């Protein structure tokens, strides 16, 4: 017997009185929700992903969309999602694929942390009138300075500093590869980080020639598939990042379907046209911490010790111990990607169930490094689910040096978090390689949107710091006494080393 169809996820309708039959919705929907029969626009709601492209382009605001138009019998355990997943898997016998970040309603720790402000006993600082320093250096720092003070008062610096990455704001854009996202999307991000004096990651997709002009703002990635990696690539980057894990899918590798591997992607990744790009779960030359240290050193040797090397790991239970191991290598920064981190394509069971929140991971990594007296040996970059400037301020107060944003930057370019990135049909021209869709995204316009987002968050961060009586970002870093936990349990407060509100 047939399982029949599962109910519609979304119901699209057109206000026929408002509609002027311009047919833009038909052109705009890459998923084929709309088609034309004679003079009428016919709607196939089953194809809708709630990407909002038709809605945002409709000149008459005639389109409405409703989520879950059909009710299931309500049940607290057997949710509609649980039932649908089973029906789909009964049909397919396959792993369920998903896009974007963790979609389970776990409590958000960020939302249960509040920031401090000054009154009376110490004045708040007005960023409009006083200097406010957000400049951030990523890389190893000496544990102490050796200087020689000569009799004539001259001070000679004996300690030699290793190269650090200089950021005008502690906000960077995380690694999203060409392949996962379009060249126009990557170009927009590259122009935005150049405008705002910060950096972005290439992801494991190589560096397309069109991005070369922005290479001084690029962090090139070496992941387990080693796609796109050669000496030319390494030398072009401002820094190199070894990707060990990703918050959306700790413990597994990556998969770019062959359909997305067009001529250009194939050249940039250095793989055959139309072939699946499969990154293995572990690096095949890293089976223990010393192997990682060797790879860090090899990359440093290859680039003459001129470039910082980062290591990115997914936030898992023992992230702190792993970070302590990484700090002992020649690596300059450890990126911790929390379990809400985004992804172009991830098995749903991983996205929703594996890993820990970035808030707890950053706090425990910072603490472990301090306990071992090696916090100066490495910078800590937090990523995964950072939604606004308050999340950034809280991440830094919990111990991060800087953050990576990903989904936030995509939303600034139009993304509505429909979560269908793995299908390659993104109507916003972001997670697609289809030329007609990519063309929709104008790098000049979208780079300004992304730059504006970074500027706004930087401004808000200055205001938050000023209100807290802090005029330099290093005084916010790991300053847990300026945070309070609201309705957080004792165990979590203990991990975060934050007092409850009122204490």
């Amino acid at each position, binding site marked *: 017997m047939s399982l029949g169809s599962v109910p519609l996820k979304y119901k699209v309708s057109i206000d026929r009185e408002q509609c002027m039959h311009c047919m833009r919705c038909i052109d705009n929907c890459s998923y084929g929700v709309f088609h034309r029969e004679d003079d009428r626009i016919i709607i196939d709601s089953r194809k809708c992903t709630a990407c909002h492209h038709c809605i945002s382009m409709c000149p008459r605001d005639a389109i409405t969309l409703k989520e879950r138009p059909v009710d299931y019998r309500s049940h607290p355990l057997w949710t509609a999602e649980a039932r649908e997943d089973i029906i789909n898997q009964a049909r397919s016998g396959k792993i369920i694929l998903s896009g974007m970040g963790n979609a389970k309603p776990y409590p958000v720790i960020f939302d249960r942390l509040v920031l401090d402000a*000054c009154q009376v*006993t*110490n*004045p708040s*600082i007005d960023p409009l009138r*006083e*200097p406010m*320093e957000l*400049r951030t*250096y990523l890389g190893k*720092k*000496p*544990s*102490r*300075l050796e*200087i020689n*003070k000569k009799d004539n008062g001259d*001070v000679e*610096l004996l*300690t030699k*500093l290793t190269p*650090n990455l200089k950021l005008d704001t502690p906000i960077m854009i995380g690694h999203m590869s060409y392949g996962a996202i379009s060249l126009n999307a990557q170009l927009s991000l590259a122009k935005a980080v150049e405008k705002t004096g910060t950096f972005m990651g290439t992801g494991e997709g190589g560096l397309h020639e069109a991005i070369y002009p922005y290479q001084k703002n690029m962090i090139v990635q070496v992941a387990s598939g080693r796609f796109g990696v050669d000496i030319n690539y390494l030398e072009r980057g401002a820094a190199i990042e070894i990707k060990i894990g990703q918050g959306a899918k700790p413990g597994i590798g990556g998969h770019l379907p062959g359909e997305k591997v067009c001529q250009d992607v194939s050249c940039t990744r250095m793989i055959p046209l139309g072939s699946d790009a499969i990154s293995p779960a572990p690096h095949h030359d890293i089976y223990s911490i010393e192997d990682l240290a060797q790879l860090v050193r090899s990359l440093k040797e290859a680039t003459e010790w001129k470039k910082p090397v980062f290591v990115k790991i997914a936030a898992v239970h023992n992230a702190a111990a792993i970070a302590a191991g990484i700090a002992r290598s020649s690596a300059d920064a450890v990126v911790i990607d929390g379990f809400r981190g985004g992804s172009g394509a991830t098995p749903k069971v991983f996205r929703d169930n594996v890993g820990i929140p970035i808030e707890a991971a950053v706090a425990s990594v910072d603490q472990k490094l*301090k*306990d071992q*007296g090696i*916090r*100066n040996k490495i910078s800590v970059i937090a990523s995964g689910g950072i939604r606004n400037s308050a999340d950034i301020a809280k991440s830094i*107060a919990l111990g991060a040096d800087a953050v990576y944003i990903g989904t936030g930057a995509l939303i600034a370019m139009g993304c509505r978090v429909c979560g269908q990135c793995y299908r390659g049909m993104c109507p916003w021209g972001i997670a697609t390689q289809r030329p007609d869709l990519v063309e929709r995204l104008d790098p000049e316009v979208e780079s300004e949107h992304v730059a504006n987002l970074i500027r706004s968050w930087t401004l808000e961060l200055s205001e938050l710091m000023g209100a*807290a*009586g*802090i*005029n*330099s970002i*290093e*005084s*916010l*870093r*790991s*300053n*847990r*006494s*300026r945070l309070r936990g609201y309705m957080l349990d004792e165990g979590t407060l203990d991990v975060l080393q934050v007092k409850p509100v009122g204490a």
Partner: protein
Amino acid sequence: MCGIIGVIDRKRALMDGSSIRDALSLMNERGSGEGAGYAAYGIYPDYQDCYAIHVFFDNLVEPKSQVDHMLHKWGRIVHQEAIPTYEQEGLKRSHIPWRYFFKPYSDLMAGSTTPEDDVIKHIVMETNSNIQGALIFSSGKNMGVFKASGWPEDVANFYRIEDYKGYIWLAHNRYPTNTPGWWGGAHPFNLLDWAVVHNGEITSYGTNRRYVESQGYTCSMFTDTEVVAYLFDLLGRRHGLPEDIVVKALAPPFWDEIDNMPEKEQKLNHAIRLTYGPALMNGPFAIVVATHEGIVGFTDRIKLRPLVIGENEDRLYISSEEAAIRVMDPDVQNIHMPRAGEPVIGRLNV
């Protein structure tokens, strides 16, 4: 608020405590009668090779026997006595101030280049964290801190401060918000040779505290000022940096200023900020720090608290108020105000 004042005689001529008491009392507007204190260097010439350990005991039974026991393990008590005090009407006696003159054994601390200092630091941290009813509030050689809850003149008269003669004096008049009525919360704060008086509130306290704690210090005084003493001990003693560099680490120039410095200076300041970012102190403050070699006064990077300097031949005065300096020395010359973050250094010149 809070009023601070410090003085050094660069030729090591001794001053008794009466004039600094009068100067501090002049700044009573800046206090609330809940805390005042004095630190003086050169006051124990007869025991100058011993660490003078000042302790507040709640009673002389359990806490004292524990401290005695610890001191016996770590070294030799050369002399001990109650610190002489004189009842004052306006001052409630909460503790018994006691002093030990102590010589630590130098072969007990492994892996240290300054074993005696490290023994003392260990004893201070242990006592203040783990022995109930005992608080070591002064632990340097040939120097001592005298403090209590009360108005400056009452505290001074309680200890009869004019009986002590020192070549460096620091004093502090407290307006508490965090820990009123607690003797340990009064300034100056001291560890080993370092004494600190502080007017302000350190907004970077959480960052600074986690930094010094990762370097082996334990913050136990419930106030931000103690991290200043530990930061000076860490950077000045353990890292061997001169005091002007320590001040540059704690209140560094802004990046815009650093970017415009000549190359060599730029490199140095860049290195200081990168290395000592977690030591940077933010928020409003004016601070005077002393060691047996001199005093350093400085403010936060945007000078949210006042600091005034005056000189008269070998004497250098640093204070919250010009009027206070004039009480100590009516003929004072060269009164001026240092720029934000600029260290004012008075070194012995003998």
